[in-house]
C-alpha cells in the first residue's frame, strides 16, 4: 500500500511516478535525508524537469536480469568551465526504473561530491541522453 506517492513529468514529458510503502519511505528518508514528502517531491520534480544531465543504461539485477534505468542529475549552482576534477558539486540524483511501461522513482538523494566521482554510470557504459549546455558534469 502506497504511503508516499506522487506524479511527475520529466523534460521529455514522460510520466514518472513515485509509489513507496511506509517502510520504503522510512528507509529512504533516513538514509537520504528526505525530511518530508513536500521536500522530496520538490527535489524529484526539479531534477526530472530541469536536469543538468540525463544518463540511461541497463543495470544488472538479481538472477542475471537487467533493468533499464535513467539517472537524472540536477546540479545546483553550476560552476561551468571552472570546474576541475576535484571541484565540489552540490547535486540531486534521481534514479528512475521502467517496468511494464511504467516509469517509477527508485531512489533520490542530494549530496556534495567531487566532480570526478559523480557520474558513476559512465563506468558502466550508460548513454548520455541529454545534457544542459551549462552543466559542468
Amino acid at each position, binding site marked *: 500500500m502506497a504511503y508516499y506517492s506522487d506524479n511527475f513529468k520529466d523534460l521529455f514529458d514522460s510520466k514518472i511516478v513515485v509509489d513507496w*510503502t511506509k*517502510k*520504503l519511505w522510512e*528507509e529512504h528518508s*533516513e*538514509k*537520504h*535525508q528526505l525530511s518530508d514528502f513536500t521536500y522530496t517531491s520538490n527535489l524529484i520534480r526539479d531534477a526530472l524537469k530541469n536536469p543538468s544531465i540525463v544518463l540511461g543504461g541497463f*543495470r*544488472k*539485477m*538479481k538472477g542475471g536480469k537487467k533493468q533499464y534505468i535513467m539517472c537524472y542529475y540536477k546540479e545546483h549552482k553550476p560552476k561551468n568551465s571552472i570546474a576541475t576534477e*576535484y571541484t*565540489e558539486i552540490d547535486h540531486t540524483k534521481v*534514479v528512475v526504473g521502467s517496468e511494464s511501461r511504467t516509469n517509477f522513482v*527508485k*531512489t533520490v*538523494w*542530494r*549530496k*556534495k*561530491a*567531487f566532480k*570526478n*566521482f*559523480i557520474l*558513476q554510470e559512465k*563506468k*558502466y557504459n550508460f548513454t548520455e541522453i541529454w545534457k544542459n549546455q551549462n552543466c559542468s558534469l
Partner: protein
Amino acid sequence: MEESKLLSLIPQIAEIAKKNKWQTHYNESSDAFYWTKKKLSKKVKLIQFIDEFSLYVNSSGKIEGLFLEYAKFNFVDHHKEFKPLFRAMTHRVSADVYTISKEKEDKVEHLLENIADKVAKETLRVVSKGANIESLLSA
C-alpha cells in the same frame, strides 16, 4: 569544521563502526549498500570525495556511515574479494533490504574492515593530489 578532524577520523572508520555498532543494509531494488549507525543523525550530510563510496558526516564532523551505489552487481564485479560479504547478507530486514545473517557476522567482519581500509587509502590518494575535502562540508 576542520578538514584535519575528518581526515584524522577516516583511518579509524573500522574502530568507529565497531564502537558505534554500525549496521549493514543492502537494498536489492536499488543495489545500494549502507554501513551506518543504527539511527543516523537528523543533520547528517552525505558527501563523496573518493570513487564508489560516500560518507555520512554529522554536524560535529563525526563519521556516521558509508554508502555505496551499484554495490553487488558492479562494485563486486570489479572487487571480487568482497563477494562473500554480499553473500552473507541474507537476513531480510524488509521487502528489499537485507543485512548480514548473525551466523555469518564473524566470517565477514574482516571484509568490512577491508572496506574501511580501502576508503582510507583512496582518501589519502585524493588528498595527495590536492583535493580539498573541507569544501564538501561547507554549507
